[in-house]
């Protein structure tokens, strides 16, 4: 019964609290109270304590204060008979446990014990999850590629069961965190023994060896409400309600539970995350703290994943092409090394291409697969290298030539989501590898065509009626067809380049992020792609055709009220309604007045540097300091959550080389500082624009982190090189 759980959680909280207290005393003795600490790459201090209490822990002294706050949450165990109520008390103890764990882990970082290294295998765990990773994953969180999160604590009864459970979660695209142990074993070790690839790319993230390491996953979750949801630190009701409603996480507890596991679980229940155990534990079925059951059990390992998903109220839609390997976005990041490769196509090894071509409905036959070339089967069976041209022909009543680029871009994902097959590049620089393990599972050349057929239908269900796939396997055919494709691509690129904000009458919104960032609305125009970098105007247009009630809606431009700043009556009207009144008006081409809001998963942040009369641009993942005295992670905290912050804006990288980039503020000539990595990424197109603007050496005049990381040196440098921004009208 629940009292057993409550008692265990309360005991566990005291244990974890004492553990943190003792370590804190030791570390204070070593380093002194003023010793400063921050987790790697986060703007959210100790995120759980910060999110719930608003208290920013920066020093050991702060940790002492935080522990005192934690102590207030501890309770006595319920009496054996005629007890007083325990649920609220157990949940408080759970929160206390999370606070104490967070402090303990922070102290372990100071002591150099984190991230944990497995003493037996030498495996280094992930440790604290950075803001960068969180923001990198932003778009996956919202587009269905990563619908949920599982924290597996403990160990499966055997290695095969561990692999089975994790594979099932991967196939459902659920991100898996691993922590803790049971009887000296852990799922991480079990997977390592079975040579299962681990890491963010494959959705399996071992956090650490102890139950306490589960806190890293919860720390990650609690930041989502602040980063994407616009919740304020200290607004615990708002933050926790967000967790319950929008973060679909749950725990799978494998093996026996001890007090610390229960206590950590009680902490997670505060966030609305239920636990499903594989042992015969007491259960808590009444709902309300969690959406459904708080604690449940499922002794059958074949059913435990499905059970947990249901208990969390999650629906995972997985459509798998008819191929003999597992399939899902969790496999997208999987690598295949040379020695694991059975056969490869393209790259620099053989001629190859992939091309989506528009046909009339009566010209192709749906589901038809043509493989052209003599002895293709034998040559495939031999392995090694083979030429491969992939022609995906689509037809549909609602299909438009503009959508081909999108269908074609998805070919990459189509292949990459298969387990044991790998893809990179596009068009005529594509590269595909098929691993020995996929081959052994029965993966044939034909399966490549089958994947494209099934997934093109799935992704473009309402605009594509027929898909026929042809694979060319001889060098002669591949080269011949590649020429035809190149002609088509040239026409397509020219047409895309001609698309401007002026030449269309409709923009598209992107509300995909509203599942996480409820008041943010992206407005996507031909010359301004989504701030995540993943959605451009054509994507929006196609997505709307595919699902007229979906996350991308047409925004009639209306009247252009302000051509310099890019204010349109239609955009304003739409925004008011779609943001629930949070945003009244938007200027598309300026950072200074009513700029675009952000969900939190922007690729870059643009921020003004008044003393340099320009702006700086820093990308997600850059951990160094910037000239405005804030790191990316701190800056990001001021930009996200669907709020307009004049002078600060989240953007997609490719927007930098749009003619509309800060058009109203003076365009790219306003850029005074930009990281080397961004410079590298945009340089080709940037050069063209810089030349057109009459400043061909602009890129060199823009400072980067190798020049300076503070504004004083920046201004010196700009003056020295004669940066045009200094001569421009005042940005403020």
């Amino acid at each position, binding site marked *: 019964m629940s009292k057993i759980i409550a008692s265990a959680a309360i005991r566990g909280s005291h244990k974890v609290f004492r553990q943190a207290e003792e370590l804190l005393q030791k570390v204070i003795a070593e380093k002194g109270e003023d010793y400063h600490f921050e987790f790697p790459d986060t703007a959210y201090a100790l995120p759980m304590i910060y999110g719930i209490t608003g208290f920013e822990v920066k020093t050991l002294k702060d940790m002492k204060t935080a522990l005192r706050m934690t102590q207030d949450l501890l309770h006595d165990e319920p009496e054996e008979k005629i007890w007083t109520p325990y649920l*609220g008390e157990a949940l408080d103890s759970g929160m206390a446990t999370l606070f104490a764990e967070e402090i303990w882990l922070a102290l372990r970082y100071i002591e150099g014990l984190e991230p944990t290294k497995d003493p037996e295998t030498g495996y280094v765990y992930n440790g604290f999850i950075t803001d960068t990773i969180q923001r990198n994953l932003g778009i996956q969180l919202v587009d269905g590629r990563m619908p949920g999160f599982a924290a597996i604590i403990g160990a499966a009864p055997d290695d095969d069961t561990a692999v089975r459970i994790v594979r099932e979660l991967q196939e459902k695209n659920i991100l898996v965190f691993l922590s803790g142990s049971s009887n000296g074993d852990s799922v991480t070790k079990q997977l390592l023994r079975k040579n299962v690839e681990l890491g963010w790319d494959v959705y399996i993230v071992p956090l650490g060896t102890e139950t306490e390491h589960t806190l890293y996953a919860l720390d990650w979750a609690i930041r989502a409400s602040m980063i994407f949801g616009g919740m304020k630190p200290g607004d615990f009701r708002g933050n926790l309600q967000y967790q319950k409603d929008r973060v*679909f996480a749950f725990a799978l507890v494998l093996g026996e539970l001890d007090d610390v596991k229960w206590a950590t679980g009680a902490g997670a229940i505060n966030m609305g995350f239920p636990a499903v155990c594989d042992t015969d534990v007491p259960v808590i079925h009444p*709902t309300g703290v969690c959406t459904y059951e708080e604690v449940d059990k499922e002794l059958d390992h074949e059913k435990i994943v499905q059970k947990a998903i249901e208990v969390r109220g999650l*629906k995972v839609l997985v459509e798998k092409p008819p191929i003999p390997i597992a399939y899902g976005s969790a496999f997208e990041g999987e690598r295949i090394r040379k020695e694991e490769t059975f056969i490869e196509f393209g790259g620099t090894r053989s001629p190859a291409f992939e091309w989506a071509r528009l046909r009339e409905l009566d010209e192709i036959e749906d589901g038809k697969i043509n493989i052209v070339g003599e002895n293709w089967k034998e040559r495939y069976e031999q392995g090694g290298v083979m030429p491969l041209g992939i022609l995906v022909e689509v037809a549909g009543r609602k299909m438009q030539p503009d959508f081909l680029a999108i269908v074609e871009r998805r070919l990459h994902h189509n292949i990459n989501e298969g387990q044991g097959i790998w893809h990179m590049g596009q068009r005529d620089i594509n590269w595909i590898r098929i691993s020995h393990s996929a081959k052994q599972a029965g993966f044939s050349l034909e399966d490549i065509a089958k994947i494209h057929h099934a997934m093109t239908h799935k992704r473009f269900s309402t605009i594509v009626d027929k898909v026929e796939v042809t694979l060319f396997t001889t060098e002669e055919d591949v080269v011949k067809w590649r020429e035809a494709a190149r002609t088509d691509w040239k026409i397509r690129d020219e047409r895309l380049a001609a698309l401007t904000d002026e030449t269309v009458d409709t923009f598209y919104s992107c509300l995909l992020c509203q*599942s996480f960032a409820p008041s943010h609305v992206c407005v996507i125009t031909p010359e301004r792609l989504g701030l995540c970098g993943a959605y451009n105007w054509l994507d929006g247009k196609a997505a709307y055709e595919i699902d007229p009630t979906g996350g991308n809606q047409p925004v009639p431009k209306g009247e252009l009220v302000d051509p310099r700043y890019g204010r349109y009556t239609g955009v304003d009207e739409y925004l008011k309604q779609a*943001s629930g009144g949070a945003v009244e008006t938007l200027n598309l081409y300026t950072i200074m007045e009513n700029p675009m809001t952000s969900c939190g998963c922007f690729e870059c942040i643009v921020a003004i540097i008044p003393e340099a009369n320009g702006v700086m641009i820093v990308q997600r993942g850059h951990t160094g300091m910037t000239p405005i005295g804030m790191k990316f992670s701190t800056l990001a905290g001021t930009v996200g959550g669907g709020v307009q912050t004049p002078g600060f804006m989240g953007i997609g990288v490719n927007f930098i080389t749009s003619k509309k980039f800060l058009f109203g503020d003076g365009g790219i000539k306003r850029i005074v500082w930009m990281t080397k990595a961004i410079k590298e990424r945009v340089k080709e197109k940037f050069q063209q624009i810089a030349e057109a603007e009459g400043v061909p050496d602009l890129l060199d005049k823009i400072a980067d982190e190798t020049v300076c990381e503070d504004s004083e040196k920046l201004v010196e440098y700009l003056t020295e090189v004669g940066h045009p921004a200094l001569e421009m009208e005042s940005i403020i």
Partner: protein
Amino acid sequence: MSEKVIKSADRVAEEIVEWAGAHGLETAFERAERLKPCPIGHSGACCKICFMGPCRLVGPEAEESAQGVCGATLPVVSARNFLRMVAAGTAAHSDHARDMAYTLLEAATGEAPDFTIKDEGKLRRLADIIGVPTGERSKEEIAKDVAEHIISQFGQQKGEISYIKRAPEKRQEVWRKWGIVPRGVDREVAEAMHRTNMGVDQDPENLMTAALRVSLADGWAGSMFSTDITDILFGTPTPRRSEASIGIMKEDEVNIVVHGHEPSLAEMMVEASQEQEILDYARQKGAKGINLVGMCCTANEVLMRHGIPTAGGFLNQELAVMTGLAEAIMVDVQCIMPAIAQAAKKFHTKVVTTSNKGKMLDAVHIEYDEHRAKEVAREVLRLAIDNYANRTTEGSRVHETSPVIAGFSHEYIEYMQGGRFRASFRPLNDAIMAGRIRGVVGIVGCNNPRITQDSVHDYLAKEFIRNDVLVVSTGCGAAACAKAGFMTPETALEMAGPGLKEVCEAIGVPPILHLGSCVDNSRILTVATQMVREGGLGDDIADLPAVGIAPEWMSEKALAIGCYFVASGMYVIFGSESPVDASSEVKEIMTKQWAERFGGKLEFIPDPEDILKKTLEAIDSKREALKLRKYEPGRFGTERKLMTMADRRKLEAAARPHEGVK
């Protein structure tokens, strides 16, 4: 030989009553048997408001043809009597509240130095509700303004009482539509007295509507003020374990019964009785210690906040004397039988009256003065200690008690469902929606010696929990359930239906929650409002599958409570006969007309089985109206809505977090 009449379902009480009978002592139980109620007054047909009468409106066609000297018809007379009772009940609760408000004021100004502000958080929440600025101000500054605001609400002449806005919006509209929003507490009471004076309001409907208006000045003002102020001054209750039974009297300690309603002096007694000097004094007089024992609603107040054991409700007061173990019974106001002073003459017990409003022949009067409150308490304690030596072996001594968990303030009820960070009413609402809990019933009110003491309380409580109905209880109803041993978490495991049991187990609560004294019925209003605000159970209290029951009522205060629950939209059932039984028109008004206008009605049902049946029917029909799943014992569950990404995008943009109890 006739069958033995069981006077009390409280075994210890029954034993004392028997002992008393055998020793030639009389109690209310015997007096009730001997003194049958006057049938004319009992049914509301007697008019004695002017000296042309009293007029008896009786006869075979009294409703149509009977008239008083002035021409008042039976419905007018019954309605007038009823309104007067409700006004008296409101006056009682509200005057109690006024005393509390002045205590708060003087605690804030330092004039009553023994009192401090114990729950600053609640003070600030309250200040926010009534618009008193908080910010950086000290708790004393805020408390002074809050107290003054509340005091002004008693004498307010126009407008609306400020707490009205705590009710669900829809309910407020109903009140405004029918013109029953109270203007000020005293004004409604005075006006009720005026209306019922000879020759004023002669329209039964108008009189009955006035009864609802004056009752709201009790529920949403007087009583609610009192609960809030008491929490601020003495702490908001949280669950604690104690004992219930008159058997709690100790053989080797000085037993002092604190009886009545206002908690201020009782609180001082609690503190003073723990002072070393007082304890030493007791030891010096040969006692091992001081055993403070509560009775009636004073008991509920100190039980909820300090775990002081309760010797039971109203009907146990004489019996406390007859244990021969009570050195003193300290009383203040309301529900105090003058019979105790007479009973005490046969024992060593000193009856100490403390309120200037409530004096009694043959009692010692030590007047309570909040400016020297603790000193008064010490004086009473010393008097009791001095009296210890006078104890004899005379008396009925039973030492059987039942364990009880009490202390369910609405704040704690919210907390217990989610802890400090997730406190809400979501789990309760979910449980009702899923059919784990069928509905909620308040079993409240008095004991009445014309009904076997506690028998209906106990019967209904047992049956409701067996039928998965969560019970909340206050006043003597709570004392009954406590003495019966129902207010323990084990009761849920042993006696509750399968769904209710699961919820009680998850939280760790008894299936019957002790919410406090009779003024604390205001907590039920707050809980009901919170359930409405939490969502899923309609948008008004009238929509909730909830019923209020006072099965063994006797006080005018009970009628005031019943009326404010009806006005708040609830179906209310009183046990025993109706005080307006003579007039079918008045009965029709309080059932049909009130149901149409206010969504609640007041029925008097003597048969306990009938009460049970009607309650369950009412709960089920409210469930049906809410389109909740049909209640089936043992079959429940929330229908899962599994969320796709598209569903998740459609989540209300700013999902409203729980607001917290106001």
